């Protein structure tokens, strides 16, 4: 059996295309890793063995026939279990949705990865209906952090981040409403991209809050993240918020460096929201770029408040029928918030939407003078599973709620955010957010590539 665990996306695809390893061998090795590790990590909720081997064999046949097998030929990946996979019920972390009929076709992003030669090996765990930051799922159990199995993987795309961090797959897909890519990427120590709202199709995903749900990838290097992001781009008429915009590949941008890029650090009271080790780690990464200015995200606390209200309203509306008739079948962590959100007065929701519009204008103005903003991705490293409160400075905070302190104000605005794992040998992972102006994902990629080359970022495979 071949060993591809430590290889990146491009190396695997190159090896498969050259014939030095077959896609079938890669798939078999991946499935063996999952079988060995999933018992202790609880990342995967379904492993698509038959499909994976069929896709891999099709790749091998294409190569043998001299056809182009695609830029991701033979690369294994997993998807959060809210993505439609043809022939499977899309459970979205819930018990109720197990009753759904099997999906008639794959989600749009799965179709894109398939056409690029990637091989789907399974679906992974998440918070129920993506409404959480911890992947402590009452129905499927908690996903465990590969760097310390007693700790949270983060959420809601916790299975995706953990599977990548553990080296089970080199890439995975997740979604983000208030930080569901940034938070697990930070706690598991991998790269994650929440692109600009409207950039990547959400067709075939179970939405939480339709007006700001995003889909995005996880990977263990900047170049891997870029490769998959490039494969995922493109307008999709089946997603009503998908923007008709040219594909803007970032792989070819990675070597451009950051000369002339105006970089700043978010000084939005980070020292009061985050532990000192997090603030210090971000400062170290910022130092890679030389002297940088500091900026404040206007009204960050109100941005969280608005995000919380809009998310609650849109999510509770989506599940309203089941809240009335089957509330006892929800995960309690989700149920109580959804029930409460169903009662939110319209005036609050509309004010939140108008505030978002105002804040977007403020942020665009801020990006007139900077190109990239660095911030902590999470206020602390992974807390123990089940921990209700965490001390930040002298303050006791609600662990599950406070995890999104930095991501939620940004996700709700739709600006692109790349989460990058800061190099901290021997310590639990913490991520840095690299926030760019709308449609400027390439700036974040270039900065991440510089910091990675300088060894200030790293996503080593967790030893489990």
């Amino acid at each position, binding site marked *: 059996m071949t060993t591809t665990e430590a290889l990146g996306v491009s190396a695997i695809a190159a090896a498969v295309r050259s014939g030095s390893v077959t896609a079938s061998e890669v798939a078999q090795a991946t499935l063996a890793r999952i079988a060995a590790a999933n018992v202790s990590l609880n990342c995967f909720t379904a492993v698509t063995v038959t499909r994976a081997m069929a896709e891999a064999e099709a790749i091998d046949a294409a190569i043998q026939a001299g056809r182009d097998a695609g830029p991701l030929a033979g690369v294994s990946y997993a998807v959060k279990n809210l993505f439609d996979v043809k022939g499977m019920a899309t459970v979205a972390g819930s018990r109720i949705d197990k009753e759904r009929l099997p999906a008639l076709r794959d989600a749009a992003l799965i179709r894109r990865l398939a056409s690029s030669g990637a091989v789907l090996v399974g679906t992974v765990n998440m918070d129920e209906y993506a409404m959480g930051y911890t992947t402590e799922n009452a129905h499927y159990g908690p996903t465990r952090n590969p760097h310390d199995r007693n700790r949270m993987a983060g959420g809601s795309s916790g299975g995706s981040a953990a599977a990548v961090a553990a080296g089970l797959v080199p890439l995975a897909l997740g979604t983000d409403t208030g930080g569901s890519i940034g938070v697990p990427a930070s706690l598991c120590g991998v790269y994650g991209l929440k692109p600009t709202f409207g950039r990547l199709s959400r067709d075939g995903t179970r939405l939480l809050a339709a007006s700001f749900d995003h889909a995005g990838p996880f990977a263990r290097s900047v170049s891997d993240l870029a490769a998959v992001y490039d494969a995922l781009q493109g307008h999709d008429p089946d997603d009503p918020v998908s923007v008709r915009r040219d594909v803007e590949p970032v792989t070819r941008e990675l070597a451009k460096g950051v000369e002339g890029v105006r970089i700043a650090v978010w000084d939005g009271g980070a020292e009061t929201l985050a532990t000192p080790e997090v603030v210090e780690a971000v400062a170290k990464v910022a130092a890679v770029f030389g002297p940088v200015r500091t900026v404040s995200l206007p009204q960050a606390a109100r941005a969280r408040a*608005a995000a919380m209200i809009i998310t609650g309203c849109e999510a509770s509306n989506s599940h309203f029928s089941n809240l*009335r008739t089957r509330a006892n079948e929800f995960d309690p962590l989700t149920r109580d918030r959804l029930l409460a959100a169903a*009662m939110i007065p319209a005036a609050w929701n509309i004010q939140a939407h108008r505030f978002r519009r105002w804040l977007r204008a403020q942020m665009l103005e801020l990006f007139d003078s900077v190109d990239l903003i660095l911030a902590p991705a999470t206020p602390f490293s992974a807390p123990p599973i089940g921990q209700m409160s965490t001390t930040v400075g002298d303050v006791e905070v609600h662990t599950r709620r406070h995890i999104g302190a930095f991501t939620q104000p940004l996700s709700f605005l739709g600006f692109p955010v790349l989460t990058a794992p800061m190099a901290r040998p021997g310590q639990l992972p913490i991520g840095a957010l690299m926030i760019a102006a709308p449609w400027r994902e390439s700036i974040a990629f270039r900065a991440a590539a510089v910091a990675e080359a300088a060894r200030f970022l790293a996503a080593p495979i967790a030893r489990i």
Partner: protein
Amino acid sequence: MAATDGPAHAGASAASDSLPDVASFVDQAAALLEIQLDSAWHSSVVAAFTSYRDAATLLMEFPVAVDVEQASVYTLGDPNDDH
């Protein structure tokens, strides 16, 4: 668009002082919406609604100018329009 320096959104002032009892509101809203609240999770729902209320209080105090429209989701406009 910018925030006004004028008064807060109508109805927002002193919101926390004048709010009715949250538990009563939750019970009445649940009845109106035909939602059954099990006694086992009633207090958790009240706590969650209190969090939403606190968030709303912060928001409603903020003076967003009257000409600031909510960002559109539904649109018949140019698909090149980002939002």
